[in-house]
Each structure stands twice: as structure tokens, then as C-alpha cells.
């Protein structure tokens, strides 16, 4: 009866086996073939995705928070022979706010958004963004904001936030804009934005 190796169960002949060289060479060749195919499937680039928001999102004057929408997929890894769904999503329509993560693990999330300077008369004290897990910022994952909202020499602010988050399959990631005012109810328009999700571990 043939023996087998400890890691990949590659078959080999033992002294009591018939000296059937073609049979055992075929068994070893097929075992190596299976082992390498399995390793190749695992060795592909990690799961990752990036989405862009191209439609301006407005936080009305009656609100201080507004969850951003996503319209474009820049990349979204998919290995159907390993797992039938892409890393995230996919996007279903231009109003998508919650990005469903399909695989568990510790994911690195990076997001950035552009927001134009506001007029001093708008009384906007703070412009920012924060990462949402399952639609919530509690507990807070990462928030970043600026109080330099009226800088004439800096007509567009770029605000970014990033964090590592342990995610279960089906959890969603989102990004929320922040516009806090000292007075009044001026709306704030956030423009182009991106969010990148990078799977760092499997569990």
C-alpha cells in the first residue's frame, strides 16, 4: 500500500509495493498538480475594493450628518472559483450608501472626501467625515474634520479618515459627512469622494 507525505498527501511507493514505476509516477504527478492548483488559488492578490462617489451629496441645513452615496466601482476583487461574490457589494444603484463586505476578517478602511470652502456667512464651524460600521459611528471608528471652513486660499478641503475594523460577513461600511454650524441653516455640499477596503486577515 503506498505511503503519503505529511502535508499534501503526495503518494509514494513503499518497499512492499509492486515496482510499477508508471503507476506511482502518475500518482505523484497528479498529487503535485492538485497541491499546486490549491496553492495557486490561495496565492492571488488579497480581497480589496474601492468605490467612488461622483454625485455631489448635500447635507441640508436642518442636519449635521449625512451618509455619502457611491456610484462607481474602481476595483473589486472577485475569484468565483473560490467564492461566488466579490470582496464588497457589488453596488446596485447610485444611491447606495452601505457597502456590504462579503468576507470576514480585519479590514483596513481608507476614505477621503472633497468639500468646498463655505462662505463665512454660512456659519459652518466644522466640516468632516467619519467611517460607519453597519450604519453607526458608535463606537467611533475614525473621524476627521477641519474648522478651517472658510479659507479663501484653499477653496477645496480634502478630508480623510482611516481605521482597521474587524468585520463579519454581511457587515456594512459607510462614510458620513459632518457639517456643524454655529448658527443658521446653510446646506453644505460634499463633492467627490472615495473609499478603499483592504482585507488584511481572514478572521
Amino acid at each position, binding site marked *: 500500500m503506498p505511503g503519503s507525505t505529511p502535508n*499534501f498527501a503526495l503518494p509514494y511507493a513503499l518497499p512492499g509495493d509492486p515496482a510499477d514505476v508508471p503507476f*506511482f509516477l502518475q500518482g505523484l504527478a497528479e498529487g503535485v498538480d492538485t497541491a499546486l492548483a490549491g496553492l495557486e488559488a*490561495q496565492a492571488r492578490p488579497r480581497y480589496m475594493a474601492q468605490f467612488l462617489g461622483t454625485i455631489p451629496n448635500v447635507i441640508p441645513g436642518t442636519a449635521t450628518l449625512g451618509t455619502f452615496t457611491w456610484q462607481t466601482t474602481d476595483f473589486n476583487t472577485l475569484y468565483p472559483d473560490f467564492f461566488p461574490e466579490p470582496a464588497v457589494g457589488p453596488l446596485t444603484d447610485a444611491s447606495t450608501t452601505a457597502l456590504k463586505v462579503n468576507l470576514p476578517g480585519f479590514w483596513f478602511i481608507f476614505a477621503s472626501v472633497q468639500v468646498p470652502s463655505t462662505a463665512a456667512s454660512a456659519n459652518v464651524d466644522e466640516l468632516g467625515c467619519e467611517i460607519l460600521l453597519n450604519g453607526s459611528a458608535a463606537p467611533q471608528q475614525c*473621524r*476627521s474634520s477641519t474648522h478651517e471652513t472658510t479659507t479663501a486660499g484653499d477653496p477645496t478641503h480634502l478630508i*480623510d479618515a482611516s481605521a482597521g475594523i474587524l468585520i463579519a460577513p454581511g457587515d456594512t461600511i459607510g462614510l458620513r459627512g459632518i457639517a456643524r454650524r454655529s448658527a443658521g441653516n446653510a446646506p453644505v455640499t460634499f463633492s467627490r469622494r472615495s473609499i478603499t477596503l483592504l482585507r488584511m*486577515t481572514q478572521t
Partner: protein
Amino acid sequence: MTMNTPNRNYPYPEYGEAANGFPAQDQALATAIDTDLQNNLAAPIADALDEPSARASRPAGAQVVATGVNGTLSYTVENYDNDAIVNLAGSATNFTIQTPGVYLLTGSVNAQPDGSATGAAALIMQSSLGTVPNPVGSSRNLDNDKDTSISCTTLHQAVAGEVLTLFVRHNHGANLNFSIAQFTVTRIS
């Protein structure tokens, strides 16, 4: 005489070698391939799929930092750690790298308002080998009644035993409360 392949060093019998060495030669070849695949392909692939990573945070409560001094941020919750990087019982501030490599670092914190908008606050990354890289951080002017939320991100090549921390510094003129701190490290290569 046993020969070996040039790249993987797999053994095979020289042409003309007696065929009665077959079972042992077959086992030697299978074992050599098995060991090679395990050590040089399977293990590195497994490591790459589960990179050393950690996150710790302070989801509630605040740290008081005096004006003009470095205040190292401390954490109360270990959110994730697969490489013994964080040990809050031993140190509430330190991330100790166990596996050398290039790490993606990101952190954030909120400075709470106290009624005065005087000054600015900065969030800076630091390692036991010196400020990383020279330095990495972010600063924001303060507001009188809104949180000031600061974040920063960088890549850093870390060695085993290197301690990574975040600290804040401000020139507000009075103590400031810093809350909702988080620090993430994850190895990328």
C-alpha cells in the same frame, strides 16, 4: 548516484542507476516536493493572508493633556490583535511589533472643546527608534464649541521589538481633554 534539480533541489536517480532503488527514490522525491511546497509556498501564503495586525481604542472617557507637552494616548479596548502587538494589562499606550516588516499605521483622536478656540492640536506617530518617519502627524486649529477630530496615516518599516505610540500636543493655553482615540497597525509586507 542521486542527482538534484537545479532550482528546487529535488532528488532523482541518475540515468542508468539500478531500478531496484525505485521505492526509496520515489519516497525521497515525494517528500522533497512536500517539504518544499509546505515551507516555501504554503507557509508564506498563509502568512500573507493573515498579516500581523492590531487595533486598540478608547471609545469612551477622555485623557487630559496639558498645554505644551506631549501626551501619549492610552487605550482601554483591544479591538483586534493577532500577533501579541497590544497588551493593555502591561501597557495602555504601546504597540510592540513582533513581526518585522512594512506596516500601515493609522490613528485618530478628538480634542474636546472648552469654550475657547485658542491654539491648535496635533496628533503625531512615534516609535521607540524615533519619531516615524520624521515625523508623521496632522494638526488642526481648535474650535470653541466643536470637537477637533484629527487623524493621520503612514507606512513605516518596523523591526521586532519596536514600540509604536501616538501622542498629542497642543498650545491651547489650558488643559484639553482628548477622547475617542484609536490606533491601528497592519503589516503589508
